[in-house]
């Protein structure tokens, strides 16, 4: 008997973005009624693969096969027409429209003259939420919904498509245990109906409980693929990481010095409330929490980019006034923002110009900018940070993500800060450069710099931070010690729930 072809497959798919290679020849086959786990570290290429299957990106080479026949997706509509539904990691919703419209955009039921049947649409949406076991008013607008609720709308959207292939990119990251359990119930029902599921998660216990087949990616390449029985959790972690964790995260001895930054009762109405902590010299203090928990907003509040409604910040005994980044810089705070392209760099300006933006006084000779001084100030840090570039006069746009991040770091280190706030230090950075950035941050802390680090990459926080503060919905939910914390204990605080399935903790190996 010949096996039916997989519902959806890719063969030898390659994709690069500029100088960054995201996928280097990946195969994947999704079979009817089977849940397939796609595993790998951040930056391993999972999301790129998802976006190729969704028709968002086109592979540079390789083929996508639907029912064994090669296809070319010209856009998301083609992928949807082929019966593929995708739940993205970050909700992509219409905030000004109702939940019902979000679920059924482009697929709303019609009545006479091609009009949308609003009542029927509402019933469909209600039924979907009933199936998911959540109560959401389908009439309300999406704006203002929590991230978890938004993720549920995304899930309902994917289910409404009557898809034959369901792709879920970390759907459970923001969900509570109960919601996650409901979701898996629905996934099992879909599988029984012959739907193929591709499931991306960082929670290995979910993969082992729900998936029959595993594929592991590392640095854009396929490491191994096979049935679940062929793997143990330890194998999976080892193959994902490809090296022991102590190589990825530098070993350091914490030596908490005196208090450098003291924050008390920081509040911004409706965003965060009553955040207080001490940051010591030489310490790396991690901020964990789900997307939308308010971590970046607290950092922006401390640095004065956003106003605060209450609370105080002191650096070395000096009060940092609210809403005044210039004053924050004078007291010795530096901030590497979350989105370096939008907030950290002027993409068209040279490396030199970018690296000296925060210290205009130091590169001036008389009223003019001196290229020699610019170069001097820049080189001091770019050499220490091992920036890979031909010329310092090149625009930063030509650099890879990791090297761009080094330029941002150089810019702020040139201000000789006491406190370095660094938000998502390695987002969109390839694994090699990531280890280098980690090494540098560790060295800076070793030299006495106090570091506040926000990251959505839990292994990164666990590997780097001396202490981790966990935020949930705008409040401090708790603190853990960096050495003894596990991914589970942090998630427990971040969601306020026990993880869906008790068991294996990864990353703490």
């Amino acid at each position, binding site marked *: 008997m010949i096996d039916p072809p997989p519902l959806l497959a890719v063969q030898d798919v390659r994709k690069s973005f500029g100088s960054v290679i995201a996928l280097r020849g990946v195969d994947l086959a999704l079979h009817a009624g089977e849940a397939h786990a796609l595993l790998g570290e951040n930056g391993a290429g999972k999301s790129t693969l998802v976006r190729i299957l969704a028709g968002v990106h086109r592979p540079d080479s390789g083929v996508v096969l639907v029912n064994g026949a090669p296809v070319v997706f010209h*856009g998301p*509509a083609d992928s949807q027409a082929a019966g593929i539904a995708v739940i993205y990691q970050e909700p992509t919703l219409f905030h000004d429209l109702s939940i019902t419209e979000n679920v059924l955009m482009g697929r709303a039921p019609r009545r006479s003259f091609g009009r*949308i049947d609003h009542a029927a649409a509402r019933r469909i949406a209600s039924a979907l939420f009933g199936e998911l076991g959540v109560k959401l008013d389908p*009439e309300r607008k999406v704006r203002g919904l929590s991230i978890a609720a938004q993720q549920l709308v995304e899930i309902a959207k994917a289910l409404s498509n009557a898809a034959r292939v369901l792709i879920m990119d970390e759907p459970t990251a923001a969900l509570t245990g109960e919601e996650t359990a409901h979701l898996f119930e629905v996934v099992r029902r879909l599988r029984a109906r012959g739907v193929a599921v591709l499931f991306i998660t960082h929670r290995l216990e979910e993969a082992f409980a729900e998936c029959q087949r595993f594929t592991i990616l590392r640095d854009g390449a396929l490491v191994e693929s096979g049935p679940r029985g062929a793997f143990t959790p330890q194998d999976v972690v080892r193959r994902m990481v490809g090296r022991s964790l102590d190589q990825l995260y530098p070993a350091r001895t914490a030596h908490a010095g005196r208090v450098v930054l003291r924050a008390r009762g920081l509040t911004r109405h409706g965003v965060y409330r009553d955040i207080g902590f001490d940051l010591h010299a030489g310490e790396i203090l991690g901020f964990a929490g789900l997307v939308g928990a308010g971590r970046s907003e607290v950092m922006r509040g401390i640095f004065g980019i956003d106003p605060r409604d209450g609370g105080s910040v002191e650096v070395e005994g000096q009060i940092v006034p609210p809403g005044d980044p210039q004053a924050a810089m004078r007291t010795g705070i530096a901030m590497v923002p979350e989105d370096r392209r939008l907030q950290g760099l002027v993409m068209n300006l040279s490396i030199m110009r970018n690296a000296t933006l925060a210290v205009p006084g130091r590169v001036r000779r008389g009223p003019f900018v001196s290229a020699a001084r610019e170069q001097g100030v820049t080189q001091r840090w770019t050499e220490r940070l091992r920036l890979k570039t031909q010329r310092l006069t090149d625009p930063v746009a030509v650099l890879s993500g990791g090297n761009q991040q080094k330029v941002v770091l150089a810019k702020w280190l040139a201000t000789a800060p006491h406190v370095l706030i660094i938000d998502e230090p390695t987002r969109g950075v390839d694994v090699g450069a990531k280890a280098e950035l980690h090494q540098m941050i560790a060295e800076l802390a070793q030299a006495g710099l106090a570091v506040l680090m926000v990251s959505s990459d839990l292994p990164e926080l666990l590997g780097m931070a001396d202490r981790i503060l966990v935020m949930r919905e705008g409040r401090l939910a708790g603190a853990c010690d960096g050495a003894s914390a596990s991914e589970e204990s942090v998630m427990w605080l971040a969601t306020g729930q026990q993880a869906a399935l008790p068991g294996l903790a990864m990353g703490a190996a």
Partner: protein
Amino acid sequence: MSGMAMAPPVRGRLALRLSQFRELGLVASLLALVLATAAVNPRFLSPLGIRDILLDVSVIALVAIGETLALLMRQVDLSVSSILGIAAYGAGAVFVAFPGLPIPVVMLLGVAAGAVLGAMNGLLIAYGRVPSLVATLGTLYVFRGADYAWVKGGQINAINLPPTFRHFANAAILGVPVMVLLVIIVTIGFGYYLRHYPGGREYYAVGSNEEAARLAGINVERRLMRGFMLSGAIAGLAGVLFLARFGTADATAGAGMELRVVAAAVVGGVAITGGVGTVQGAALGALLLGVISNALVVLRVPAFWQQTIEGALLLVAISLDILLARHTLWLMRARHRNG
């Protein structure tokens, strides 16, 4: 999670009412303004006075409908006034050449010419990826310049127009001017389309989150293209009505109207940030601005104050929107934090 999820139906209806709050507010301020002005000067409410205001407003209100389509997609169409100018003079030229042409045919010609010019905007914006502010600022001048080159200082006067067309502006059904009825019908038609048709909802989707619209399989380029073609077509129709209303058109017809049109839509609750607003609101906004200008004249307010007051009103409208949006968001957050 459960707190936020538990929104009872009553609250849903309240939320719905909140979105209509804007239009009710507009109607209320209109009524207050009309009554106050009439109390000072009763002639303000004379049938002739009302008719004049409605006729003045109808052209701007019509253009504001097309502008709303652009604004909903988080774009702007500044070229509408130039398209209107070309259509107004063009309609006159057609009447001079073919005095016997039926009025609806000339209207269709205006619509077609406007659609062609709008398509040029659409091509630049959807496929050339030129930001609409820049693209339509450019075509605002290009179209107006072409108009000057074509008209060469000429002018269409009421004398040159066929009598049927001259009477069209004054024609009325049950006391309501035909031009006003036409604008009301177009408003209701587009309002219905935007609310009840998948294509109409796409304008909101594109303006609310373009990335999400693409992922939902919406052809964003095609929607942009159609939106700007429609905006141009409506401006073309408005050009014909402009000629009917004023009986005269030269190369400056409609010049400077684009910002009044944007102002009308924004006062009417169409968000410049996209995804929010209705054509009914935009038309009401045009009516409110028109009533204010007339009221200021009736109340003998010096003419130079008029623009200041209109501008101030625009700022108040936008500030109210921002405050209201912030407050609602804050309420929602507070609700599911406590719940």
